[in-house]
């Protein structure tokens, strides 16, 4: 199943690239078809096995081959509830990404879709790899195509943004590699054999300063991706300069790999160290929430604004992960999914507006409601989602995170809650500046096309569904959360 998805995506990418010479249109269709195929297979798998999925508490599907026995590296991939959920999100946003770039990308389409599909393959790999070497492998695979995506099809400042993105993530990734090596080495010293397997390394539990150092190796890689405030620098540039689908995938998926990494690796590997670090991490999270919100408020570039809201939203993830309780973790997972959808939708909207008006400048826009009421309505909905209006997914997420972290630290949570107020301000400002007020220019632009309507419609359904009935999501990830918390309880004393 996992292999099937990854290989279909990779093969689809190659095919799209090779066939683009004959017909540029063909590559779009191939990209879409391969994604749809994956989704269909995934749905089929889910429907036939949903009882097992909801009931089981371990790994749903496991693939295990020896790969490089000399290093104890194996090709070990497995899926649990969390991975399953994230793959679903990946495929969903992937399809939307292809649809969103249908018109936008007119040059070098073949290579574009190649990159797009390979990013998705890398992301799926990251979400399922259980061997740390393999994980690092996929971690990098999603990086390079993203670099091309930003660097080739981005906006005016694309090269700078692409470099920044690549260097930040590469540097932190290499630190993670060192930590992975350190973990493998400790395992070797304990048992006399090399292994980079997740299950094996869970038993390592390094202590003291060593544990802290190794944890930082992992943590830095993930919080750069997430991003948490001191390391967020790359994000506004990358998001702003990337093409629409690139921003969608960056915000919707790539940031989630950071959150996933913390939940999957940092906390279970280093319960003691992360418990020590938790107060600082929560402070960082709270700072992220406020800082992102304030900066979002002061932006005039529409895309940059949305990018900073991501910083703010991901602060909640950071806050929740280091609260170490069930409620917060449920909130974190909800936030990952619903932020993926709501921010993705906002980026798509910005992309649509940019396609029509050729500007991202807030001061140029205004009063677009008369022209494009449908886009306006969708925009209003997602602005509301972003500020956490009850009934939409983000509300549940933020509420759960805050009530979870309240148990851990009252002060920090209280400070973080201010972020919700700020969120309201910037979301409303966004909406008001774009769609209401007086028209600065005589815009004559068309409203949603059918393709765009399908894209936005599915996003609306998703976010509303998450807002009203989040239980399936929570149920699916429950075993994973339990595992993490068990690991925590086993090794760390509160």
């Amino acid at each position, binding site marked *: 199943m996992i292999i099937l998805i990854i290989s279909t995506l990779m093969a689809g990418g190659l095919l799209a690239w090779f066939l683009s010479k004959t017909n540029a249109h063909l590559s779009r269709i191939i990209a879409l078809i391969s994604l749809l195929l994956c989704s269909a297979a995934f749905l089929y798998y889910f429907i036939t096995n949903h009882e097992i999925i909801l009931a089981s508490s371990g790994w749903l599907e496991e693939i295990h081959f020896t*790969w*490089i*026995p*000399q*290093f104890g590296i194996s090709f070990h991939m497995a899926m649990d509830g969390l991975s399953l959920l994230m793959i679903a999100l990946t495929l969903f946003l992937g399809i939307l990404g292809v649809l969103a770039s249908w018109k936008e990308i007119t*040059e*070098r389409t073949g290579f574009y879709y190649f990159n797009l599909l390979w990013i998705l393959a890398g992301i799926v790999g990251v979400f399922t790899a259980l061997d740390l*070497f393999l994980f*690092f*492998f996929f971690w*990098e*695979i999603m990086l*390079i195509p993203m*670099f*091309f995506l930003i*660097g*080739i099809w981005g906006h005016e400042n694309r*090269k700078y943004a*692409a*470099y920044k993105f*690549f*260097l930040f993530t*590469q*540097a932190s990734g*290499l*630190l993670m*590699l*060192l930590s992975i*090596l*350190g973990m*493998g*080495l400790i395992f*070797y010293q304990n048992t006399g054999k090399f292994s980079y397997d997740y299950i094996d390394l869970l038993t390592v539990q390094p202590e003291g300063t060593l544990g802290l150092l190794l944890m930082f190796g992992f943590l830095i890689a993930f919080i750069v991706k997430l991003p948490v405030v001191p390391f967020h620098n790359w994000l506004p540039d990358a998001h702003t300069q990337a093409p629409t689908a690139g921003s969608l995938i960056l915000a919707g998926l790539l940031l989630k790999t950071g959150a996933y990494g913390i939940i999957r690796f940092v906390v279970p590997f280093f319960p003691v160290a992360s418990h020590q670090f938790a107060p600082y991490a929560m402070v960082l999270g709270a700072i992220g929430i406020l800082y992102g919100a304030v900066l979002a408020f002061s932006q005039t570039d529409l895309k940059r604004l949305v990018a900073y809201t991501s910083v703010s939203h991901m602060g909640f993830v950071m806050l929740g992960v280091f609260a170490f309780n069930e409620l917060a973790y449920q909130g974190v997972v909800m936030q990952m999914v619903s932020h993926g959808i709501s921010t993705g939708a906002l980026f798509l909207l910005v992309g649509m507006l940019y396609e029509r008006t050729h500007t991202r400048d807030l001061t140029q826009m205004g009063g677009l409601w008369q022209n494009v009421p449908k886009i306006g309505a969708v925009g209003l909905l997602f602005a509301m989602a972003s500020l956490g209006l009850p009934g939409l997914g983000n509300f549940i997420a933020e509420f759960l995170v805050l009530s979870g972290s309240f148990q851990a630290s009252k002060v920090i949570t209280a400070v973080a809650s201010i972020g919700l107020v700020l969120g309201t301000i910037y979301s409303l400002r966004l909406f008001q500046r774009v769609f209401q007020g007086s028209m600065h220019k005589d815009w004559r632009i068309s409203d949603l096309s059918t393709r765009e309507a399908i894209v936005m419609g599915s996003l609306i359904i998703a976010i509303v569904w998450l807002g009203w009935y989040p239980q399936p999501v929570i149920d699916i990830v429950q075993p994973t959360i339990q595992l993490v918390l068990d690991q925590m309880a086993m090794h760390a004393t509160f």
Partner: protein
Amino acid sequence: MNLSENIGQLTPFIIMVVAPLLLIVIISIKRNHLFSWLYTLLTFLLVAITALLAMENPLAEIPLFALDKFTYFYTILFSSAGFLIVLTSYRYFENRTEQKDEFYVLLVMATLGSSALVASRNFVSLFLSLEVLSVSLYALIAYLRKNELGIEAGIKYLVLAAMSSSFLLFGIALIYLETGTMDFGILAESLGPNLSVWILGGFALIIAGAGFKLSVAPFHWWTPDVYQGASSPVTSFIATISKGGMVGVIIRLFSSVKGYEYPSLVISISIIAIASMFTGNILALLQNNIKRLLAYSSISHLGYILVAFLAIPQNGAEAATFYLVAYFITTIGAFGIITILSDQDGEPESLDEYKGMFWKKPWLAACFSLVIFSLAGIPLTAGFLGKFYVASAGAGAGLWILLTVLVINSVIGVYYYLRVITTMFSTEKNEKTLPDLKLLSGAGLALLIIALAIIWLGILPSGIIELITRSTF
């Protein structure tokens, strides 16, 4: 002692001795470039095959040389590298009016020197093999006589190489004076736990001499000039086979005298490694000439290999060898592409000439990107596994400072490698036309082999690691 009994084990070397001599005779009768080219390809192929066969049954004790699996592995590596270099360079030399055949003669001789260097287990043979290699290289660097830079590079290399040889010799003399032996094995026994001043001085001079060949900082000054001045196939040779021979023999020397147990040696090699990594990477940032850029990048790569040296008790020899294999393939690929893109006017050295290459020649540019990614150590390529292997060996030996430096440098490195990539993917218009590559030509075949090898080593390296583990100490 009896050489005739071990004739089977000696075959690869005998071929490398006889083949160029025979070629000289043939040249003196009638010159034919195509024939010389095919002949040399066949020579390298035969060497590789016979070395592979001899590997089954090694351990013949002959004076001066050790014909063990290590030697054969490196011989196979060198002859395959030579094969690929020759394969890419047919048209390069065909396009130039010079007389071409001597190139092949000298190339095989230099490869012999390098293979013999790895096989050396005595300072005498180390020195002699090194000189066979160097003397052949002087002429190879200045091979295109019309090229002024070539002559300049040749002279620079000659003076500096002769100087470094005398350093090496003086160092050997000091060690010989103190221990009374030039054999690595006996030397290892006669070295005490504390090295005397003379021996330390000797090792320091040997490190200087060897460091020159390896072009590690601070002995690297010749590298960019020679890389730029020499013709691309020769540069490829200097960057790979010539350095590889030195790496091989240093591994042999270092592990037989247990150099990693002497703090003074460890410290000096660490300093050299750190200096090389930083020098290479930082100076490469400023380069616009692709050959000079690759020269600086090779300095830093040798720095990475030196890290593995210090981890010899922890798989360091394997790691260095594997890294070397990856580095060989990648470097030959990089210079191979420059070779292919050369025309009568010269080589495309400036980065600007590669602007937008991906959109005009996607295959070639994709190969080049692969090569660059491998140099940068990005996963899915041989370079990444090499780096991983080195890092894992280094971690095993507890060399955390060196590893941190390695990581910092990998990031610096990524920056200039990305510059090459973005140049190729640049969407700006570029008037410069680059020559075409026929896929069915020798060069096309070579590139295909290189690309596949990079990916193969990057994804399924266990076979080759197995081979390396069996053939190192």
